[in-house]
């Protein structure tokens, strides 16, 4: 299986701050990949690096086997819908379609026209007067009609209301099925991605925390609840993702390939949202810090 995106030790620095560092990840083709993480985790940076909008400070990134945005051909193979779905407010819907047709040799005018008609967009309307949802749909139309092999969307639904969100995601899914393209989209809300993504990358504090197929991630992560216990005393194969303790009870989220036999634990399966939250949860780190301070 070929990879649509391969990153090796990828890093990007703005001034003195690393927006993304030591990112090594491989994303297989033909997937709908969700990139999740809290605000400021580096999602946009990673997507912009993949789209060739940014040049990496460290490491290397290959998209569809080539350097991002290196050539017009490479640009044509990757679609990118940036955050807040920018469009030219002064131009009309028809102007945007014409723009796409003029600037993309593989432009699919029929798809564009059909989508615009289905969305109820009036070609002669100025884009500045459209609603946020309509603008997002127009930007998605531009991204789809250029017939990319990989479509990258940065927080496409962040500014939309719940109904528009669902419509947008639905439209995206239909298009994905129809055109057989890989999709990489980011969100800080897992609920946006839950139904559509079959591959997940969790980015926290400018580092990749976990990446893998959604089903496999769900199969290998468990929540253990039982009498209070030190995380160091768990079996070697169980990697602790997060831990919380009360006076008597400990709750761990662990990753393990092996089944859990210890009868002391109540084992529950995690939802995708809980899984991601466990990775975003920095209490494990914070707790250690508190303990140190008390000892002093």
């Amino acid at each position: 299986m070929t990879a649509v995106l391969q990153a090796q030790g990828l890093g990007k620095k703005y001034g003195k701050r690393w927006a993304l560092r030591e990112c090594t990840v491989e994303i297989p083709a033909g997937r709908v990949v969700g990139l999740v993480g809290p605000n400021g985790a580096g999602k946009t940076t990673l997507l912009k690096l993949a789209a060739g909008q940014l040049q990496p400070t460290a490491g290397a990134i290959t998209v569809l086997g080539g350097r991002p945005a290196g050539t017009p051909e490479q640009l044509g193979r990757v679609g990118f819908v940036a955050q807040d779905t920018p469009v030219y407010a002064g131009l009309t819907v028809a102007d945007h379609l014409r723009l796409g047709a003029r600037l993309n040799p593989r432009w699919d005018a029929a798809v564009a026209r059909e989508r615009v008609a289905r969305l109820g967009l009036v070609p002669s309307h100025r884009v500045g007067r459209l609603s946020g949802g309509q603008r997002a749909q127009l930007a998605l139309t531009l991204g789809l009609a250029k017939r990319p092999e990989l479509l990258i969307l940065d927080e496409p639904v962040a500014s939309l209301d719940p109904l528009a969100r669902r419509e947008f995601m639905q439209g995206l899914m239909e298009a994905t099925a129809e055109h057989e393209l890989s999709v990489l989209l980011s969100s800080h809300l897992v609920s946006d991605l839950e139904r559509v993504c079959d591959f997940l990358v969790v980015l926290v504090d400018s580092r990749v925390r976990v990446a893998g197929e959604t089903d496999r991630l769900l199969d290998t992560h468990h929540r253990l609840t039982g009498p209070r216990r030190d995380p160091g005393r768990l079996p070697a194969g169980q990697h602790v993702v997060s831990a919380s303790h009360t006076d008597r009870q400990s709750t761990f989220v662990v990753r393990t390939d092996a089944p859990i036999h210890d009868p002391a634990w109540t084992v529950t399966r995690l939802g995708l949202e809980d899984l991601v939250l466990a990775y975003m949860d920095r209490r494990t780190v914070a707790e250690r810090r508190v303990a140190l301070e008390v000892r002093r």
Partner: protein
Amino acid sequence: MIWLTWRQLRGSAAMTAAALLVLAVVLALTGPDLATRYTAGIAECAQDGTCDRFYDQFFGAYELPFMAVTLVVLLLPALIGLFWGAPLIARELEAGTHLLVWNQSVTRGRWLAVKLGLTGLVAVAAAGLCGLVVTWWSDPLDKSAAESLALMAPLVFGARGIAPMGYAAFAFVLGVTVGMLVRRALPAMALTLAVFAAVQLAMPLLVRPHLMPPVTSAFELGRANVENLGMTREGGGPVRILLRSALPGQAGAWVLSSTLVDRSGRAISDGDGEAALQVSTTSGPCSPSGAVGRGDACMAEINRLGYRQRATYQPLDRFWPFQWIETGIYALLTLGLTWLCFWWIRRRLS
């Protein structure tokens, strides 16, 4: 790409074209009449030798439109830099639309090349057309203008010939560069205006006088270069003389410095070109009794005593060489900034 650039430009381009068209039509309608009056006036005044008075009258009658069109040509490049140059990239960066357009199947180098090329070409064409039409129209007036408003005068030089094209190209690319560095349209416009104004002031003050080595020579004093010759009515005391920034026999020259020197070549005038001469005012041609014929005899006496006007100047026939050199300098500046734009969009805006 050309289509998109034109689509984004066409509104303001049409407006500019309309304004320039109105100007061109007005000038085309009044120009021939102006030229006819000038020719007739010259033919008439040449007979009785009153051409100085004709020049003054003719120029005085058209001074307002002359200043107006000169101002239009001087301001046009600044406006181009301000409204076409500065927002060209800055507005895209501000609205985030660069992310949309940079992800079509066009590299950003080509995107910038077409945007710069097409818009810049329209800008240079507009300024060039405007400059040449005004140069044609104001030709009789330029021939009649006093030294301070002659062709070589700093204010007028930049509004004639081909220099406006150089200014427009430079102002446009300057605006684009500043917009790219500042990334916000409004501050970029302000900064562009400030930098362009500074360059336009520095050019005539610091650079243009040295484009070609200026000529220095001494001139006899006469009515052409002496503003005022004064002596006390009752005689006694020195003769006071005030020089003009004009040279006899070098009409329209750009006088860079003008001083009064005595026989030994020592400068004796102050900064305003005023000097007190050691000429007898109690007897001889400069005394009250000898001052007949409006001081001509006194002037001759002053010349005989070896007083001269020493002037450093650029003669009028250097107008076209200067136009070419100055346009060339602005073209080089434009090329340098263009290179910076391409470098910046590849290295820094990523």
